[in-house]
C-alpha cells in the first residue's frame, strides 16, 4: 500500500500530510510532483493545503489545469480514494470532482482556530471507521472556505448523504456561532456521488499528535488505511 501526497508549487501542508501518514500512522506515503502525469503505483491520493500556484485568480483555479490533477481526475473516476484538505478541497471543486465552490469567508478575514466537526456519514473510505454523529476536534485555517452551491445541488447533496462533516459546537449542535466561515448549512466537508472523493476545509493533518491538542485527525487516515486493506483482501 502506498499513498501519494501531491506537491504543487505553493503547497505548504504537504509535509504535515506526509508526516501524519508516515510518523503518525507509519504507513508508506510519498510526495508526488505536480508535473507528474500519472498516479500509477499509488492506492490513494491526498491533496494538501496551501496556496497552489499562489491561489491567484481563485483558489485552486490554476492548479486544476496541472498535469497531476488531470491524472487524479482519471484515477478518481476509476474509484481511487482521494481526499482534498483545505486548498485540496478547493482544487477538487475547481476540477469538477466535487460540486459547489469555496468562496471568501463571510468575515472577509482569514480564520485560524480550532473547530468541532460532526461526522455526517461513515460511508466514505475516510470515515468508514468513525461512528456517525461522532464529534472531532481539529483546526481550520483558510480565507476562502465558505461552501456555496446552488439550491438544487444542495438538496441533492443532502438526499444522497454527500455531506461528510458539519461545523458544530462542542455539544454537537450546528449553530451559527460554530460556523467559522459562513458555509451553507455549516458544511465543512463533502464527498462525490461515488463516495471515493472527499473534500474538507479543516485540517486532520494538524491533529494527529497529542502535543497539537488533538489526535482526531488520525482517525480519518486510519479509516483510509482500513478501507484500502479490506479492499486489497477481497
Amino acid at each position, binding site marked *: 500500500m502506498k499513498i501519494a501526497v501531491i506537491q504543487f508549487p505553493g503547497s505548504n501542508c504537504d509535509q504535515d500530510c506526509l508526516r501524519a501518514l508516515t510518523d503518525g500512522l507509519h504507513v508508506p506515503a510519498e510526495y508526488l510532483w505536480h508535473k507528474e502525469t500519472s498516479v500509477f503505483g499509488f492506492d490513494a491520493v491526498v491533496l494538501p493545503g496551501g496556496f497552489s500556484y499562489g491561489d491567484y485568480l481563485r483558489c485552486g*483555479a490554476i492548479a486544476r*489545469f496541472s498535469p497531476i490533477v488531470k491524472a487524479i481526475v482519471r484515477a478518481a473516476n476509476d474509484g481511487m480514494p482521494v481526499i482534498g484538505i483545505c486548498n485540496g478541497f478547493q482544487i477538487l471543486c*475547481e476540477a469538477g470532482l466535487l460540486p*459547489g*465552490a469555496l468562496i471568501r469567508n*463571510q468575515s*472577509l478575514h482569514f480564520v485560524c482556530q480550532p473547530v468541532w466537526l460532526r461526522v455526517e456519514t461513515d460511508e466514505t473510505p475516510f470515515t468508514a471507521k468513525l461512528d456517525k454523529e461522532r464529534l472531532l476536534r481539529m483546526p481550520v485555517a483558510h480565507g476562502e472556505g465558505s461552501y*456555496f*452551491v446552488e439550491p438544487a445541488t444542495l438538496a441533492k447533496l443532502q438526499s444522497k448523504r454527500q455531506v461528510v462533516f458539519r461545523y458544530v459546537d462542542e455539544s454537537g449542535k450546528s449553530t451559527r456561532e460554530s460556523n467559522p466561515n459562513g458555509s451553507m448549512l455549516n458544511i465543512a466537508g463533502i464527498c462525490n456521488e461515488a463516495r471515493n472523493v472527499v473534500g474538507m476545509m479543516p485540517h486532520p493533518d494538524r491533529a494527529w499528535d497529542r502535543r497539537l491538542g488533538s489526535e482526531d485527525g488520525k482517525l480519518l487516515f486510519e479509516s483510509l488505511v482500513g478501507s484500502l486493506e479490506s479492499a486489497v483482501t477481497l
Partner: protein
Amino acid sequence: MVGALMKVHVIVMPKQSVLDPQGVAVRNALKEVGLDTVESVRVGKFLELEFRTPPSEMKLEEVCRDLLSNPVIEDYTIQYHSTADS
C-alpha cells in the same frame, strides 16, 4: 515600444444568487463616509489582457468559462478593444 496590441477586457462578477460580503462591506463604508444614497455594491474582477495576435472568440469564451471565471459563482463579460491605448 509595444506594437499595436489587441486589448481585451474581461469582467468577472459574483452571481446575483451568491452573497458578496465584500460588496456589503464596501457599501457600508461608503455610507460611513457620507455617500448615503448608495443602494448596493458588488465587487468583481477586472482583467486586462493584451494579445499580439487576436485569439479566436471561441477560444476566448472557453478560457473565460473554464479558467477566468467559475460558473458556479460567477458571470463574465468580454469587451474587445482594437488597440493598446485605452
